[in-house]
């Protein structure tokens, strides 16, 4: 049995952006527990502030009020313990795959050269990029770039991996392959993971617990425990249990998404026509 105590705790966090006279609340009274060795998936309607939640968790932004605690200490800035894998790719274009993967450990100098090389080779093998280790990011396909990005994050052995829509922008086929690949990776070795996505199915198949965010200003609408058996595969999405999770979450997401349409004339037109659909 893997340990699932609480690693990170988000307590009443609020965050607003903009100057005083037009300050817009993006996050309001967010409460969230991130458990050890679990994958916490976060879904929310588009534009609800998911990326802001990621920036807060990572420490790139600090909350206006409330606190984010990690192992009893308040998060006060970015750290290698909370590693972020970004939307699209953030691989350095001027470094080869191998140089990108070894970037973190080399920076900190916390790994002797030989074990770093071994670890890097092993991890590049795991993501299937051995033949491409001396290629530059622009020479890799979209899927390979994401795998290189995963390798670069994994080698740092962060306490928690924060993934901000990591498979966004990939074509449907590659996206599916990446989901399967990531599922295997997570089930082989237990990790603490925060996985932010706008794809509900992706969230359900990967998650141990699914956090549904509300519309902006965002807060937690509901946390759903996903009890699909492990090891999982993408076929399970057509099981009745998965369907129930999906329908339940979808209803909430619809409600939240529609909120951003109300209040404007064109928005209410849209709502009307939307309601007429079967």
């Amino acid at each position, binding site marked *: 049995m893997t340990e699932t105590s609480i690693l990170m705790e988000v307590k009443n966090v609020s965050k607003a952006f903009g100057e005083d006279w037009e300050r817009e609340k993006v996050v309001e009274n967010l409460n969230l527990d991130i458990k050890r060795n679990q994958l916490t998936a976060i879904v929310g309607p588009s534009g609800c502030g998911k990326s802001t939640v990621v920036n807060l968790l*990572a420490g*790139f932004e600090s909350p206006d009020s409330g606190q984010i605690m990690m192992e009893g200490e308040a998060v006060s800035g*970015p*750290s*290698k313990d*909370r*590693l*972020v894998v*970004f939307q*699209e790719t*953030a691989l*350095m*274009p*001027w*470094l080869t795959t191998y140089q990108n993967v070894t*970037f*973190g450990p080399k*920076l*900190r100098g916390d790994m002797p050269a030989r074990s770093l090389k071994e670890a890097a080779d092993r991890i590049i093998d795991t993501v*299937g990029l051995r*033949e*491409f280790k001396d*290629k*530059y*990011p*622009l*020479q890799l*396909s979209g*899927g390979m770039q994401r795998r290189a990005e995963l390798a670069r994050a994994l080698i*740092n052995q962060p306490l928690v991996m924060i993934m901000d829509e990591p498979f966004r922008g990939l074509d449907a086929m*590659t996206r599916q*392959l990446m989901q399967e*690949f990531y599922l295997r990776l997570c089930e082989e070795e237990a990790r603490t993971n925060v996985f932010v996505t706008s794809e509900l199915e992706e969230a359900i198949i990967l998650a141990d617990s699914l956090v549904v965010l509300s519309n902006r200003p965002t807060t937690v609408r509901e946390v759903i425990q996903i009890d699909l058996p492990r090891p999982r595969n993408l076929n399970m999405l057509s099981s009745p249990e998965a369907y129930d999770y999906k329908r339940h979450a979808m209803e909430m997401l619809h409600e939240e998404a529609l909120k951003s349409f109300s209040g404007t004339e064109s928005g209410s037109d849209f709502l009307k026509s939307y309601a007429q659909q079967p």
Partner: protein
Amino acid sequence: MAQATPNTEKSKSRIGKFVSNVTFWRGVVAILVFLVLWEIGAQWKGWFGYMMPFVGKVAPPTDVIAIWMEVGQQSGYWLSWWLSSVRVFVGFLAAMIIGIPFGLAMAVNKYFRGIFFPPFEILRPIPPLAWVPASIIFWPTTEMSIMFITFLGAFYTIVINVLGGARSIDVQYLRAAQSMGASQWDLFSKIILPGTLPSIFVGAAVGMGITWEVVLAGEMMSGGGQQGGGGLGFFIWGSYMGGVMDQVIVGMISIGVAGYISSSLIRYLGHVCMPWRRMF
């Protein structure tokens, strides 16, 4: 999982590759066609009795080449090449050495930018030609005054490119590095510096072009030398003053060729220094 095979590069000598390149021949043909049109335009009056506007007033390329052959036998002409090249190179080098750190400092520090950007922007539109009188007073030797003019030509362009390049680096690279434990110095040396490199080379190539553009302005004050050895810019100025229009054209083309060679060298250097940008 889809696996693309890494593309194998054909082994061929660099020169061989260059000469067999379609782009190379396209350039050669373009220049030849230009020369033929110029020749026809310049000869139009003699052949058809009607003067073509503009091009009819200059000597045809055959005459220019004949003059060039004469001029090429004088050591002064080649001394001019050498002198202008040194002036351009020293001014350019100084502009790089001062401009790159200055641009980077403005990019990374808002206080530094706040203090130095406004005066920089006021000085920037002043044409190097307008600096000539001031330059003569500033510097003890004429040579230094000329180099100061070429320096000014390159400096502003380099600074603007470095500043713009460094400021447009995607914040995700910086955040990714930060979340792997990068210090401020790491961010600068491992992200901002390599990330700005492409802009540095663009600025250098453009700046190099401008130094050749302004070298004439600087050399107007050189007062010439023995056998027209006052630099290519002075060669043009002197020829114009002496009313030798054909020589003016020789000088103009000489500067054009010199500028093209210099910019090509910089582009080649950029190619070598930035391997990640040469896979297409």
